[in-house]
């Protein structure tokens, strides 16, 4: 990558810019073959999206005039390395009545920020913490 943001002309990356696409372990798309799967050189882990790919797609979405979609990709990029159980726990906590106080959500935000560097998502959860307080969502639901 030259550092210049990707544009719609680069899209789809798998077809037009395979040079910028790689798995977390550094494999290229051409390395992901049936033979490689059979011989265990490619595992499920290699078929995961990377934070880099999501940021690249965010650049393309921005270039295509879709800033909110780009923001979602940016949040997704921050969550790539967050384990599934943590994702599900925080999702659950964000549902109505799950957190009993603002502090629980703020703590979840801190965890995402400090452990995974998910600054944007953390801020997003802190914002939810404030709105939930104003809208009285910290009450027990039966």
């Amino acid at each position: 990558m030259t550092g210049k943001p990707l544009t719609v002309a680069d899209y789809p990356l798998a077809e037009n810019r395979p040079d910028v696409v790689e798995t977390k372990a550094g494999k290229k798309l051409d390395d992901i073959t049936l033979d490689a799967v059979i011989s265990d050189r490619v595992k499920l882990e290699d078929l995961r999206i990377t934070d880099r790919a999501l940021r690249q797609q965010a650049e393309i979405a921005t270039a295509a005039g879709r800033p909110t979609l780009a923001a979602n990709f940016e949040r997704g990029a921050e969550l790539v390395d967050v384990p599934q159980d943590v994702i599900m726990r925080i999702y659950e906590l964000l549902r109505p009545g799950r957190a009993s106080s603002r502090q629980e959500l703020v703590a979840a935000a801190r965890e995402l920020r400090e452990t995974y560097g998910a600054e944007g998502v953390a801020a997003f959860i802190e914002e939810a913490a404030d709105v939930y307080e104003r809208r009285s969502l910290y009450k027990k639901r039966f």
Partner: protein
Amino acid sequence: MTDESHARPNRWKRFSDWDERPLRLDKFAAEDAANGFAAFKSPFDPKPGFSLAAGVVESMDGIASRDFDMIDFFIARYHLDPEIAPEAMAMPSLEVARMLVDMNVPRTTLVRLARGMTPAKLAEVVGHLSSLEIAFAYSKMRARQTPGNQAHVTNAKDDPLQMAADAATAVAFGFDEIETTMRVARNSWSNAVACAVGAAVGRWGTLFQCSSEEAEELKIGMAGFTSYAETVSVYGTEKSFIDGDDTPWSKAFLAAAYASRGIKMRCTSGAGSELLMGFHDRKSLLYLEARCLCLQRAMGAQGTQNGGIDGAPVTCTVPGGMRELMAENLIAVWLDLECASGNDARATESEIRVGAKILPYLIAGSDLICSGFGSILKYDNSFNASLLNGEELEDYLVLQRDFEADGGLTPVGETRVMELRARAVDAISAVLEELQLAKPTKDMKQSVVAASGSDETRTFSGRDVAMISEAIFARSITVIDVIKALAARGFTEEAENLLKLVRLRVSGDYLQTSAVVRDGRIVSAVNNPNDYQGPGTGYRLTDERRDEIVAIRDVLTRQEVLRVEATFRPAEVTRIAYKPVGPAATTRNEREVVIGISPAFGVKLFQTVAGHPLSAILRVLIAGITEGGGTARVVRMRHTADTSFLGLSAARLAGSGIGIGIQAKGTAVIHQKDRLPHNNLELFSNSPITKLEHYKRMGLNAAAYALGEMPEPVIVPTRGEAMGSRYHARVSLIYAIETEMTSEGAEPEEIDVTFIGAAA
């Protein structure tokens, strides 16, 4: 009670007839905004409004920011662009509505304005449009240029064999996405594996989802079996949102989580959900949907499943309900969201309402016209019956052909479908065996391949399926294991296809707006944007695509008509001989009726459209004339094949002045020499339902006219059959064979008819 009142009928019986129509199973609701039954307008809807203070939204649609509920807050914070809003909100709504249907105003201009519009403003603008204008604007505003479609693939037994066969079938018919769900929640893993394998048969690229509980669905996605999700539901009032057990932030977090797993995701919302949940806040359906859609754009979803969805049936009970469903879809695409445009829940029992509902979408196109189309039979649809289902799939294929409209599907021949179904059943069986999950028997497999629906299958029990599903989950089987199992058992193509689908995740290209895979390439709103700007622009059928769409089964050709006719010849020559005996002259026999037969009668054509051999027709006509006291003479006309002129020419040759004209297809007329060509005595135009007894009576009546009597005309009773649609293609081809044999000025020819043996 007096006799008089006793005798007086108290009901026009037509109402009783109407009571029996499927339509009367639909129930209709009175418009009642206070109780949520208002499509476009409620007195409780807010007026569009907006104000900024120091670059921050101060009020929106009459609500001050300090009073914002969660939805207002989220929309104001993430949807509204403060740089555009002052300009967009100041524009008169009617003017914006006109821009939506003005082909000279580019889509991009309107998409920009939408970012500065509040929910009430968006609703007010589209409220100015008629149904036709909404459909047109939808066609102009939808994000991806090429239309597509989505299928439901489910079955009542959650049978993995049928799931695979039906998935392969749906893929063959061209669906871009297939969606499954299950009758029993714990069968989700079995369904996911079976659908993933079935969808890899024949071609690759059909995106696949397994609709289940949020956490479970994400897990199935993580195991690599599914490629998209659309169960992220949002609602238009805060109370219904909370009742749905989510908030805008929890859903937005989930949206980001799907992105982080490389899974395409769209939200779901639709009119009527708040009404069904009891928290409509007395607002119109459209205004609430406008809120949902602004929220979805705010969350950063690439698209929406929208257009009533589960609320479509209740929306369709309200005046303007179907128009409202179209209007909310328009708001979705105006907000630049991919739109899987509903047309899924069967909103009516009336086939006419079904056809009317789908048509605007078919001709306007949509990212995914149905979300989805029930590719299986109604009773097998675990989402509940769709607007269109397996029963009606061919109707839809014909609608595509009728309107030369790309509804995303392609006709497939019987042989190909059987090959694919067998292959899919073999493939999933191989996977089940290789992973030691089950051993399907030959009988199970065969019953599934041929079955139209699960009533006809002899397959796994519910308990078997639950055990397969729980084993897949317990043993953490992933798509990699399935790919390896396919490869190990020689299903290399399917293994490759499945791998290619999962590999899409690495680059994430299919996360962009409106992405589908066509011919192995990603097609989305990024590289295939809708650039409609009037005739000649936007999506047009290519010649190749048109060829695919028109190729439905059982189409008639001239060769086929002639081939079928030729098969009747051998039998006819054993029953009748036509011997030409020179030019026909007029006689003085006052009892004579002339039967004028058409040029191809008994020469190239041998039976009527109703299937009567022409020998039998002539036999009864002559018998009728004779029994009626007349004499019959047969003359072949060679100057015309038209019924009226056949009859009139025959009448002019007859000593009585009465003639019968008859075409090979069976259309006949009784004529009199002094009448105008089309002012005959009796016409038998419905040849497909004309029986031999009618021809016999026709002979009798012709004789009666010849003797100067006034007989009771023969009536061929019709029950309103769509005669033209059943027969006109064949009739036109047959008639062309007749007209080709005419030549101007050719003299009528006397025919000596001999009947051989008994009547046919």
